[in-house]
C-alpha cells in the first residue's frame, strides 16, 4: 500500500469527487452514472479498452467539457491554474523555443517574466532538459518533446496533474525512463495524478490505485488498490507482486474487451 507521508503534503494535491457523472454526445452515452472519489495526493491509473470513455472522463475532470448530468467536485475549489494536462502528443507551439513553451502557462497567468523564466528552467531541469532551452520542437526527438510537455505541465506547481496516454507514442526504453521520472516527481511534490492508459503494465508500474472502466458507458469494472512498494524501479516489473497485480488487472480488462 502506498503511503502518503506528511512532508509531501505541503505542496499538496487536490481531491476529486465524481458523483453520478453522465455525459452524452447526441444519442451516444459515453459516461453513464459514474461515481468515484479520488483522494488528495493519490496516483490513480484509469484503464479500459478503446472507446470506453477514458479520455472523456479526464476532460470532464479537467472541466474542458461539462457533464450532461451529475457533478465534478474538486477540492480545493479554485483550481483553475492548479490543474495541468498532458496530452498524448506533446502539442508544443512549434514557433516557440523549449523555454518559451515551458513558460507558457505562467505567461497566460500573468506571472512576472523573470520569475516565469526561472521556474521554467527549474521545471526543465527536473525533466533533464536543461541544455535544450533554446532549441525548437522541430529539432527534438519524440521523447524530448514529451519531456517539455511534462515540464510545461509542472511549471505551475499543479495540485492536479492529468495525463492522457502521454507516453503511448514513444519507444519502450524512453517510456520506462519517463515512467520512473513521473513517479519520482509525484513522490517529490505530492500532487494528485490521474493517468489514463490502456497499458496494464504501465498502470501497474505507476499507480497506487487502478480503476478499470467498462467497455461501454464508462462504468467502473474494478477499483483496486495496488499492493506495491513506494519506490518503483525497473526490477519491479519482473517481481511476483507485480505479476499478481498485473494478473488481476488483466482479468478485468479481458472481460471488458
Amino acid at each position, binding site marked *: 500500500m502506498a503511503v502518503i507521508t506528511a512532508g509531501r503534503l505541503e505542496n499538496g494535491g487536490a481531491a476529486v469527487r465524481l458523483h453520478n457523472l453522465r455525459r452524452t454526445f447526441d444519442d451516444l452515452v459515453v459516461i453513464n452514472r459514474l461515481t468515484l472519489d479520488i483522494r488528495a495526493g493519490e496516483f490513480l491509473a484509469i484503464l479500459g479498452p478503446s472507446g470506453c470513455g477514458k479520455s472523456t472522463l479526464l476532460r470532464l475532470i479537467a472541466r474542458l467539457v461539462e457533464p450532461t448530468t451529475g457533478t465534478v467536485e474538486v477540492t480545493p475549489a479554485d483550481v483553475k491554474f492548479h490543474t495541468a494536462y498532458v496530452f498524448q*502528443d506533446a502539442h508544443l507551439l512549434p514557433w516557440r523555443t523549449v523555454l518559451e513553451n515551458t513558460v507558457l502557462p505562467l505567461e*497566460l497567468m500573468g506571472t512576472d517574466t523573470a520569475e516565469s523564466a526561472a521556474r521554467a528552467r527549474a521545471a526543465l531541469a527536473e525533466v533533464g532538459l536543461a541544455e535544450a532551452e533554446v532549441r*525548437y520542437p*522541430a529539432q527534438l526527438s519524440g521523447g524530448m518533446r514529451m519531456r517539455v510537455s511534462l515540464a510545461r505541465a509542472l511549471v505551475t506547481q499543479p495540485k492536479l496533474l492529468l495525463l492522457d496516454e502521454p507516453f503511448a507514442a514513444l519507444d519502450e526504453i524512453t517510456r520506462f525512463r519517463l515512467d520512473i521520472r513521473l513517479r519520482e516527481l509525484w513522490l517529490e511534490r505530492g500532487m494528485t495524478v490521474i493517468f489514463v492508459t490502456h497499458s496494464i503494465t504501465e498502470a501497474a508500474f505507476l499507480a497506487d490505485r487502478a480503476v478499470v472502466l467498462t467497455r461501454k458507458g464508462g462504468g467502473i469494472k474494478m477499483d483496486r488498490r495496488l499492493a506495491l512498494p513506494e519506490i518503483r524501479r525497473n526490477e519491479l516489473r519482473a517481481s511476483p507482486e507485480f505479476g499478481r497485480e498485473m494478473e488481476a488487472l488483466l482479468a478485468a480488462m479481458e472481460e471488458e474487451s
Partner: protein
Amino acid sequence: MRKVLGRVVPAAIPLVVFMVGMEWLVRVGWIKAFLVPPPSAVFNTLLRDWRELFTALAKTSAGALAGFALGTVGGIAIGVFLSSSRAIQRAFYPYAVFFQTVPIIAIAPLLVIWFGYGMRTVVASAFIVSIFPVIANTLSGLLSTDPALRDLFRLYGASNSATLWKLRFPAALPQILTGLRIAGGLAVIGAIVGEFIGGQGLGSVVDVARTQQRTDKVFAAVLLASALGLALFGFINLLSRVLLRRWHASEQD
C-alpha cells in the same frame, strides 16, 4: 554561388529553349511577327524604349505594392474578424466572396468615377483583386488551430485575445503567407487593369502600344509586369523563410 546556380540554371533552360524556338519560328515565317513578335524584337524594344518602360514599371510597382499592402492588412483584419464567431462568418463571409467574384474589368470604369484618373484608381483596383485570397487563407488558418492546444489555453484561462495572438495567429501564419503569395500576382494584374482605365504605368503602355499595333512593345511591357509579379512572389518567399525558418516543415530542408 554554386547553390544559386543550381537553382537558377534548371529553371532557365526551358526559357532559353523556348525563346530560341520562338525566334526561329518567326524568322522562317511560321509565326507572323505582327501577331507574336520574336524575342529579339522584344529585347530591342526594351533597350530602345527603356526610359519610358522603366518609368511605367516604377508607377505600376507603386500602385501594385500599395494595393497589395492594403489588401494584406485589410485581408488579415477581415479574416481575424470573421474567425471570431460562427454567426459573424455566416453573416459576412458571402460579402467577402464578392471581392473574388466581381469582374474587375467591368467595375473599373466605376472606380474611375469614384477615385478619378490616376494612382488612386490603380491602387483601388489592385486592392479589390488581391484581398480575397488573404481573407480566405487567414480565416482558414485561424479556424484550423489544433484543438488540443486550444484546450490547453482554455485550461489556463487564457483570454480570447491571448488565444488569438499567442496561439491562433502564429499557427495560421504559414497559411496566411500562402494567401499572400497568391495575392501578390493578383495585385499586379489589378494594377494593370486599373491602369487601362486610369491611364498610367505599364497598363497604359500596353493600351497605347496596342492601338499602334506595336506588339513588340506590348510584349515588352507584359514582360516587365511579369517580372514585377515574380519579384513580389520572391519577396514573400523570403519573408516566409525568415518567419517560418525555425519551425515550419515547408521551410526546412
